[in-house]
């Protein structure tokens, strides 16, 4: 499979090269990318924890967090269950149905095994022998880098609340997202790009912008969506008839007058504003440069399956690498289309084939560049799917079989920064329905991700409404088993 061409390794650019790219028009040294009135201490480039030091030695500096919106079937991709296969078609045991909250299933359903055929078969991969479905042939080649948690569980079984619960630690609106917490804690390494960048393929997820919102944290920590159509960052490009040199003129003039004002009024906020105008001007170059992947070598395009100018998950994976290369702290990818209530046997292969190659390429590419050690890749979803078949749609009509939402146990995986490679954590029961050993609650998972970044989830707090609030509410226990 896509071996990394040797000549590529020689052309690798060092991330430092990018981090200070973009010439400042005023030549003024900047204290931070964003400044916030009255929050100056929280927005220094080193983050709230920077000054006092991190709680633990960090295992990862950056995160690429890939969220499969809609929730793929863990049973058909990562958690193979011979017993489920054997009893496929039987009515499910009562414990799976009676008294349970299910989103769509209303009558006692039958068990459903993974579809038959080689396409759906599982293979033990690499030295670690992790079992991965043939639907993900490329990921099978990087199994020895992956660390599975097969026993993640959540409290929510509807999409939008479950997305918010996973990503903000709370099922209702109003809390900061994990990316915002990370930015708040660790600060920024790049002065020309936002610290938390979001890339989306397909429709936006149900939780909307809240999935990457800053909640009660300063808004500078919210994710900034880089769009694949139109301006990558809203209002980045100049109006028609205005060229970069004209824009520079305007920025200089505004800043000149603001400087006069600063001398007269003395408000330090004016100084910050002056810096932001310079930054805005630099972003007009640095962001398009970042988004333009056409100069990537052919081998890279082949490895990812990228096509410049197209909107695709593959392009977003490559952009994610370019972003962490430039020191962007938290990159989050959302990919819609995994809610397979029906026709699992056709829908799942289609979606799997869209993400398999680019994800494997991302792991290999980061490794090749020496970035995998300091970058944590997270692959997740808001919940898993039932071992039981679902055969009707939301209107109650019969459909080809799929699976319903499942919160009791599902699989996510990580790779890179500080996780045990080629490792499997947790055991589910014979049907992949519930947990037998080493359950990991969403709060535990988030606590673990924080830990990998050197953060004690109990100590990264923000005072709001008289409370010291944090990502993990009053819960969360680091899952030591996955730490390398």
């Amino acid at each position, binding site marked *: 499979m896509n071996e990394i061409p040797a000549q590529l390794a020689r052309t690798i650019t060092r991330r430092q090269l990018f981090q200070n790219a973009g010439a400042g028009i005023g030549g003024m040294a900047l204290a931070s990318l*964003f400044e916030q009135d009255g929050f100056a201490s929280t927005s220094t480039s080193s983050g709230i924890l920077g000054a006092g030091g991190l709680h633990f030695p960090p295992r990862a500096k950056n995160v690429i967090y890939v969220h499969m919106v809609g929730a793929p079937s863990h049973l058909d991709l990562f958690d193979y269950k011979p017993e489920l296969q054997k009893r496929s078609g039987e009515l499910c045991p009562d414990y799976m149905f009676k008294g349970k909250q299910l989103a769509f299933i209303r009558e006692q359903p039958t068990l459903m095994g993974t579809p038959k055929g080689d396409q759906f078969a599982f293979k033990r991969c690499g030295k670690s022998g992790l079992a991965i479905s043939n639907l993900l042939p490329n990921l099978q080649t990087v199994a020895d880098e992956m660390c599975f948690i097969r026993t993640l569980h959540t409290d929510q079984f509807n999409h939008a609340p479950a997305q918010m619960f996973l990503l903000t630690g709370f099922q209702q609106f*109003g809390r900061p997202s994990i990316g915002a917490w990370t930015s708040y804690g660790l600060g920024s390494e790049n002065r020309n790009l936002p610290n938390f960048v979001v890339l989306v393929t397909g429709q936006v997820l149900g939780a909307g912008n809240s999935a990457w919102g800053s909640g009660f944290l300063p808004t500078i920590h919210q994710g900034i969506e880089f769009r694949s159509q139109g301006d990558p*960052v809203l209002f*980045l490009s100049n109006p028609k*008839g205005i060229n970069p040199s004209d824009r520079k003129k305007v920025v200089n003039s505004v800043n000149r007058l603001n400087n*006069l004002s600063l001398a007269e009024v003395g408000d330090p906020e004016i100084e910050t504003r002056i810096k932001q105008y310079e930054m805005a001007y630099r972003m007009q170059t640095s962001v398009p440069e970042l988004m333009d992947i056409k100069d990537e070598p052919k081998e890279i395009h082949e490895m990812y399956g990228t096509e410049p100018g197209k909107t695709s998950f593959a392009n977003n994976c490559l952009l994610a690498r370019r972003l962490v290369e430039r020191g962007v702290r938290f990159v989050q990818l959302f990919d819609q289309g995994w809610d397979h209530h029906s026709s699992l046997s*056709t829908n799942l292969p289609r979606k799997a084939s869209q993400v398999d190659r680019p994800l494997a390429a991302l792991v290999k590419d980061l490794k090749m560049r020496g970035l995998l050690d300091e970058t944590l890749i997270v692959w997740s979803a808001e919940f898993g799917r039932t071992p039981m078949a679902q055969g009707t749609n939301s209107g109650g009509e019969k459909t080809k079989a799929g699976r319903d939402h499942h919160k009791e146990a599902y699989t996510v995986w990580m790779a890179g920064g500080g996780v045990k490679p080629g490792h499997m954590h947790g055991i589910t029961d014979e049907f992949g329905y519930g947990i037998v050993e080493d359950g990991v609650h969403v709060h535990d998972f988030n606590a673990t991700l924080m830990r990998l970044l050197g953060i004690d989830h109990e100590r990264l707090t923000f*005072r709001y409404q008289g409370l010291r609030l944090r990502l993990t509410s009053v819960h969360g226990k680091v899952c030591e088993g996955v730490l390398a």
Partner: protein
Amino acid sequence: MKPAAAICLSLVCARLFVSLPTMAGDKIDFNQDIRPILSENCYHCHGQDAEGRKGDLRLDLEEEAKKSVDGHAAISPKSRDKSKAWELLLTKDMDERMPPPKSKRKLTAKEIELLGTWIDEGAQYAPHWAYIPPTRNAVVSGSKAIDQLVADRLKKEQLEALPEADPRTLLRRVSLDLSGLPPTPSEISAFLTDPSDQAYEKVVDRLLNSKRFGERWARPWLDAARYADSNGFQADQLRDSWAYRDWLIDALNANMPFDQFTIEQLAGDLLPNSSLSQKIATGFHRTVTCNVEAGVHPEENRYNQVVDRVNTTGTVWLGTTLACVQCHDHKYDPFSMKDYYGIFSFFNNTPLEVENPSGKGVSFNFYGPKMPLPVDDSVTKKKTQLASQIKELDKHRQNFTADKAGGRKAWEARMLASLKDPPEWHELKITKFTSAGDETFKILDDQSVLITGRVPGTAHYEITSETKLSGITAFKLEALTHDQLPGKGPGRGDDERSNFILSEFEVRASSPGSPNIQLIELISAQADFSQNSWDVKNAIDGNQKTGWAIAPQFHKPHWAIFRTAQPCGSKTSSTSLRFTLDQNYGRGRTLGRVRLLALVGDPNAVEIPEGITATLQTRPQKRNKKQQSDLEKFYIKTNPELQQLEAMLAQSKKQLAALPSPSTLVMVEMDKARETHVMKRGNYLSPAEKVSASTPKSLHPFKAGLPGNRLGFAKWLMDPANPLVARVTVNRWWAELFGHGLVSTIEDFGTQSTPPSHPKLLDWLAVEFMESGWDMKHTLKTIVLSDTYRRDSKVTPSLLKEDPANRFYARGPRFRMSAEMIRDNALTVSGLLSTKMHGPPIMPYQPTGIWRQVGRNEPKWIEEKDEDRFRRGVYVVWRRAAPYPSFVNFDAPDRSACLVKRPRTNTPLQALTLMNDPAYVEIALALAGRIIRERPNEDIAARIDHGFELVLGRQPTKQERSYLVEVFQERFQHLQSAPADAAQIVKNGGSYIKLPARIPAKEMAAWFYIASILLNLDETINKG
């Protein structure tokens, strides 16, 4: 126990290195110094939460803390060394040490010493300040009291107050604060030339009485009320509750007393003989988010909504964080879970707000009490008229169906004849296909269009065909399958359920060279198959929300036939036909392959089913019963008279649907109250003990005689004995004016809050507010008339050093305006602002692709093209999943949850917005035009002066003027050499910006640059 020596040693250390903050002779104050330490470090386990309590010890209650157990008390007054708590604070035994290391809480040496001294001084407790009713404590009255109480503190801090701001600055400040808009040049000159001592007060009165006042002050309240125009969550559809927003603006303008204002919003529906307006006011609590995604559990949704109502009420009226008491007793404040569900009970009696419309499956709709709003008399009259017309036509139709005899024979003869000479369908050759998305398409040999590529949520196709046909009596739309479509089609969104929804089908005709385009009236629709409640008739009903769909008959072709009212097509020349196919449902339920045909001939004879043909050819006597009845049905279906009736009916219904019938969301109490239980861990599925409606015991009593419902609760909130509500409210207003509150934790007045910087001032304002009869305008007026408010806002180096955040108010307020105010200000100074009030939300310019969240009934952004484009920000539509992006860049919230304090950031995205957002480009052009228009014959410097006056309400300094003159000249010269750029810049305003005539593009464009620079200045977006 550790040896005493170790304890002593650490004691010595503590005493050696710590100097206490209190001034000599001052005793330690429990509220100021001690409570924050205990609350932060101890109450978590030794506070009011019984469940989480450790060692059976409470430190929040004086007697419990001082109670002797086995000869030891945790706190032994006058002797730290005898106090168990002191011992455990210092012990080296980490298993014993308090707070336990694993709690990750640690006291500083200073805090430890404070506790020790406090114990030595007698360990006196005091109730939390916020729960003691406020009292007046100034010797003077009115604005002077504010100044006196501020001066006391300044003196203590040894700070000197700045003098009053210059009149122009002051006028701009107070105008922005009270009306949200800057002063006009004539208002400026009126103020500057008014010699009277009351000049400033007159301005204040004018602003308080302006209609703009309510619009400006609605904004912070709408944040608190988490008012938005959409549901939130998955599909985030729009819903109507703008009447509530209008109610709010009107109530603020009318200066409705705050107690009434509160009662109407929380319980207007329960007031005796409640008025329409009082019911609309209850929209306050119908603004909560609502999840209607498939598979949602309605009861869970309802429970979450009630939780939100309780929490929001707690924050807005009590400055109290009730959220944590949902799951456990409060760790810090005196509220138990039982208190929480006692309040919950008041709000627990409204109906479910999602419904399953079909009664099967798991698909849900937004639902819940809606109230129709009154409309104009003329509309009502028209409605009645149409309703009776519809009734009449319906009766006719029934009669007709009953009376089957008339004309039947003739019809049969005609049918039989047309079987011999059948009307003919003609394929329409496609000359042009366009679509609103970036789909790719191909025209196939059979003249069908195959649409592939990107699947947009919704679609709008336009198909043009030139034809020489005349006498066209119907059009046929074929929705065909193809191997390249998911599941073969005919829809594009899903290979399993390959449905499409055709929302509207329209045809327009024009003859070559003629500018007249005529909409062809379609009178009937018929299809081979229509999905339940998605009848093909919906495709021509003028309603974009309904449509034609084909589930569950997927994966096969379908057709629809639309008859024209009049034959169309010209005998003498060709006709250009333009078909529009709107497909608004979302989720890619769009057509994958379409073909169009036109019918020439008698449409009644068309599509005679085979069985009917056979029957017609059979003699009447020989027809069997089934044949007879089938023929009868077919007759009714194809009878022209009946068809006409149907058409008239459809027309009337369409007219009725088009008449405005606005509604708004309101609270309605159910006849039978729900039982409320404490929910274990806040889980709606784990009810524990039953509770009845009650208010927290730690607050003022619920007066006897108050009803045990929302109305009683609202009245309890506004009881003058409530120690919180007046303080919390005036503090929010103070923060709006000064940038931060007297209590900086605006959202929380509990024991974890920051103590007020000026407790006496806060209390004075609270009492003044209550005693004025809860008069908001009076309170605001009192504040803005004070010297404290009117001070110069210059940040002198010494003030920057001594009081960087201006906590002591030696200088006037200076901070960045809110998102809406920045836009309103820019619209005003450019002369674009429309002051039209009220009504449905507006959609000004927004970049494409912002509203992408799709699902059922996904709303569409339809950009305003008239004055609505330039109305105030308070009227801009608020969709929670994607609020207006330029507002978001200036820290506007998504309004999904109650927010009483917006952050204020300073970011590069803000610079990009003001420079590049096409909305601001339009505004800059308009400003450029205005400057020239109002100073037609003056030189550059005079025009720059005017620009300054408009944008900043002041004259430029000499330096500023000469610099901008220079910039103008440089730009002018540059544009002279770049005429294409100049022309383009002038064009960027589109048709919306009327520029002065006969100004060369290069001059206009150079002024655009000046205008844009002015709009981007820090001073422009600051209130100073």
